[in-house]
């Protein structure tokens, strides 16, 4: 049963109206579909196609090109472990193995209770915070295998989790709604910058920054 409503259609039209050519809104529209459905459903593809006046095949061609669009429901908390080269070497491979074993699921798979899904993600532009884990596309910096296991356990238990450089972690659907273009008013949450982002600035000012990194320090 599709979760898409007339409201979804109105929101799609709102997105389309922002662009000189409506089709430019297709990527945001597909994010919007995921915010209702949890993944890109056939009904979502149909609705995008109807609104844009293109074929379902054309929408599908786009939806299958991008890794953020999912073909089946993700967990409430979608966890991405960076296993691109630098994170992998720094411990990302070990994190991946431990978390995957702990949850008993692999890449693009969801835990039985639907709480957590896993993905091996490519470089997420946070290399100075390696190894990095993403939860619903929020940064969880400077992870270790045990911190990552604690993280997924907290998520699965429904405990509140704060990104190390972002907001209180919202659900996959809520995150997709923000990415699509609808604000959740959380922009002011979290720090301006994490510790590694400030290292050069502090040295230039003559502020000592000789402490080596830890998960905690990196976020202060």
């Amino acid at each position, binding site marked *: 049963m599709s979760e898409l409503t007339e409201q979804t259609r109105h929101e799609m039209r709102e997105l389309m109206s922002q662009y000189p050519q409506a089709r430019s809104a297709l990527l945001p529209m597909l994010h919007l579909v995921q915010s209702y459905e949890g993944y890109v459903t056939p009904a979502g593809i149909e609705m995008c196609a109807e609104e844009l006046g293109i074929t379902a095949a054309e929408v599908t061609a*786009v939806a299958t090109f991008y890794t953020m669009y999912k073909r089946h429901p993700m967990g409430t908390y979608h966890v991405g472990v960076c296993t691109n080269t*630098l994170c992998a070497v720094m411990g990302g491979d070990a994190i991946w193995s431990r978390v995957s074993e702990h949850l008993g699921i692999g890449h693009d798979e969801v835990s039985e209770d639907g709480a957590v899904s896993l993905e091996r993600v490519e470089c997420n532009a946070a290399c100075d915070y*390696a190894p990095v884990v993403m939860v619903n596309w929020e940064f969880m910096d400077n992870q270790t295998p045990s911190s990552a296991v604690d993280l997924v356990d907290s998520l699965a238990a429904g405990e509140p989790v704060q990104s190390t450089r972002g907001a209180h972690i919202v659900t996959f659907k809520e995150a997709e709604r923000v990415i699509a273009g609808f604000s959740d008013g959380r922009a002011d949450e979290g720090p301006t910058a994490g510790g590694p982002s400030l290292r*050069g600035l502090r040295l230039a000012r*003559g502020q000592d920054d000789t402490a080596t990194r830890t998960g905690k320090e990196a976020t202060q």
Partner: protein
Amino acid sequence: MSKPVTQLLPVLSAHWDDSDAFTLAGYERVGGYQAARTALAHQPGEIIDLVRDAGLRGRGGAGFPTGLKWGFIPKDNPNPTYLVVNADESEPGTCKDIPLMMATPHTLVEGVIISAYAIGANKAFIYVRGEVLHVIRRLRAAVAQAYEAGYLGSDVLGTGYELDVIVHAGAGAYICGEETALLDSLEGRRGQPRLRPPFPAVAGLYSSPTVINNVESIASVPAIVRYGRDWFRSLGSEKSPGFTLYSLSGHVTRPGQYEAPLGITLRELLDLAGGVRAGHQLKFWTPGGSSTPILTADHLDVPLDYEGMAGVGSMLGTKALQIFDETTSVVRTTLRWVEFYKHESCGKCTPCREGNWWLVQILRRLEAGTASADDIDTLLDLCDNIAGRSFCALADGTAACVTSAVKHFRDEFEAGTHTPAAELFPYERSALEAVAV
């Protein structure tokens, strides 16, 4: 307090530790949007001249002169002109635009206002990768605040100039960092590169004249307007003037962002960052992401600028300095990077689509220690058939990554014919100590 470090020069990062730097109030308090006022009091052509004369070069990888790019926009084209900011930061190792947009998104918005005004655009797009939720929030909030304050909209700062800015989130595809693939993606299509010519300056977004610049390039423009051409040229070198963000990551004691005039060396940066992690030595590094040929300890004193890096057969790229120590298997890192290129190949060009697949097969054998005697030659031969034979530079990045690794560490690849990489370089030794706990 210790002595201020004079080799560093925080400009873009100067206010990243203000708790409200990402808000309009925080930005205005440190002089934000003054440069936009100044710029809009001049003729657009004067701003193009300023940026060209200052010598700003693209900070997204290629180093193309920004003012020159702006000057390519035709004056007689009946279609509207667009400015597109490439905020699809995805090149492995690259992590400068994300913290910039997180901490001071208004710097980018102000850069967009000045740049769009200079090229005569009334609509600008910031194409940000989708996998950075909080950055998207901060950017959109900044744009909304800029509208409310009259910095954007139908009458920017009461000058009659009209500018709309749309923050557009991508959906996960490295290739969309390639400018023509980005345009296709922004038009709601699969992100596949276009054949050039026509170049985007003539037929870009919606077949209209379009300028595409990296986040850091655009964010550098307000400082040039504010402090002037001569100041900018007093930094760096004749051909590589100005300041930039260097990103240190990997086996370095204090990884992070270090902003400095162009031309600082890795030796200097490593000194500032506490050196390679304790008890270890530098083995190899990338100057600007995985697509720039790797270098070694022999290159510690080469200036990190466009000419310096080109002079040693590499590229400045995105200044993503990924540091690897002697525990690291170069066969392992090369394989992982090529797996990335294989995954991210858009599939349009055969040499890239097929070539990356075959490279991965050979590199997997090399990593497993089961390669045949002629596998290394086949690897290099494949690179020769991939580089320069595709629409875009993704395949060139693969080839650069592989050939530079073989050039500097051929013996390690040869060992792949009899010994697994994980035996020669136990992988747990490369991981951070904290990870092993």
